[in-house]
């Protein structure tokens, strides 16, 4: 069972929910927000092993290359240019799709690899933790996310802490989702972005529920929307300055006495709603 934690809006508390639930549910934690991964700050895993995440790029054999330009013409991303003197490659635009090789008649193209990020794996609280980290300046997060999630266990219980937003960084993780939790906050922004995330999940047929973070106790704006759309509300995490301060210091909220019960309640809702192994 792989459960994605997403939000639409940034800063609603995906990581807060994911790391605390990982501990309470005994689930492995995967930090898929490879542009700005934060989960390890809270879980503090040990025995961390790092591995490079690489992407392919084409290399041209000048002896064989006829400078016909078919490769540049086939590249949908304009990563290649045929200057008639040589074939130029722009690696940051290259998606590693190998389309160039498919159209090269003299077989002048082979592939080398370059590093665009790293995957780190460790253990915390009796669970496995993994994260992807995109190198700053690289624009493509998806290859790192894909490599990270290539390490998902066959029959485990995993929480996938996703990136904010609703585009390719998120959908790359949702590809592996059996279920999802949208973390939102009781504001107009939270609602607006929760609905974007909900629409995304609905088009994909992924079952999901909502957790309201920074709750004011009533959360009317979210509660009424969930009721109207028959979206289950898994629970609320109350707002408090104390929680904000604990979070700022990298503390697990579920360890605060006032927060244990709300997190336990959310964990139980999730166990019941999804076919938890």
């Amino acid at each position: 069972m792989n459960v994605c934690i997403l939000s639409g809006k940034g800063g609603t508390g995906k990581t807060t929910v994911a790391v605390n639930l990982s501990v309470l549910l005994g689930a492995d934690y995967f930090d898929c927000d490879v542009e700005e991964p934060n989960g390890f700050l809270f879980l503090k895993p040990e025995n961390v092993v790092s591995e490079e995440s690489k992407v392919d790029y084409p290399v041209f054999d000048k002896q064989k290359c006829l400078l016909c330009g078919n490769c540049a013409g086939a590249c949908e991303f304009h990563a290649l240019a045929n200057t008639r003197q040589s074939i130029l490659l722009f690696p940051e635009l290259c998606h590693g799709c190998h389309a160039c090789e498919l159209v090269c008649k003299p077989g002048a193209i082979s592939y080398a690899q370059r590093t665009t990020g790293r995957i780190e794996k460790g253990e915390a609280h009796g669970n496995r933790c993994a994260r992807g980290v995109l190198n700053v300046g690289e624009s493509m997060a998806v290859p790192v996310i894909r490599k990270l999630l290539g390490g998902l266990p066959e029959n485990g219980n995993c929480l996938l802490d996703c990136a904010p937003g609703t585009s390719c960084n998120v959908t790359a993780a949702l590809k592996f989702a059996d279920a999802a939790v949208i973390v939102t906050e009781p504001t107009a922004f939270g609602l607006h972005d929760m609905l974007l995330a909900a629409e995304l999940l609905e088009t994909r047929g992924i079952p999901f529920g909502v957790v309201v973070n920074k709750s004011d106790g009533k959360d009317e704006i979210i509660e009424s929307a969930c009721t109207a759309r028959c979206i289950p509300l898994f629970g609320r995490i109350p707002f408090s300055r104390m929680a904000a301060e604990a979070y700022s210091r990298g503390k697990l909220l579920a360890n605060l006495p006032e927060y244990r019960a709300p997190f336990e309640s959310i964990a139980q809702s999730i166990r019941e709603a999804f076919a938890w192994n």
Partner: protein
Amino acid sequence: MKIAFSCTGTDDTARTDPRFGRCEAFAVADTETQKIAYMQNAAQSAAGGAGIAAAQQLIDAGVKGVLTGNLGPNAFRVLSEAGIKAYCIGEMSVPEALAAFMKGGLAPIGEAGNAHAGMRGGPNA
């Protein structure tokens, strides 16, 4: 020889466009016959690599010189490697721009400007 001007349209009302990668069109002039033909910039709609795609289009058209306002680093690299000279031209009508080129004295674009927008050659540039 053929030279190309980045421009704002595909007819005689076109004026030079300071952008290269995402300009509307290119005016291709033959310096011997002084005839001007226009082509749409296919790179305008490119998701990325517009400068590269625009440069490729001109290489394929057999152009030997480019006149524009600014070249981003990717377009600059492609044109340099292809041996195409680039010159800086201000805002004016296309026939005026051709006359300015024929007169001579235009400043060459010797190095890439900062990308105005877009992704600009990342860590390997």
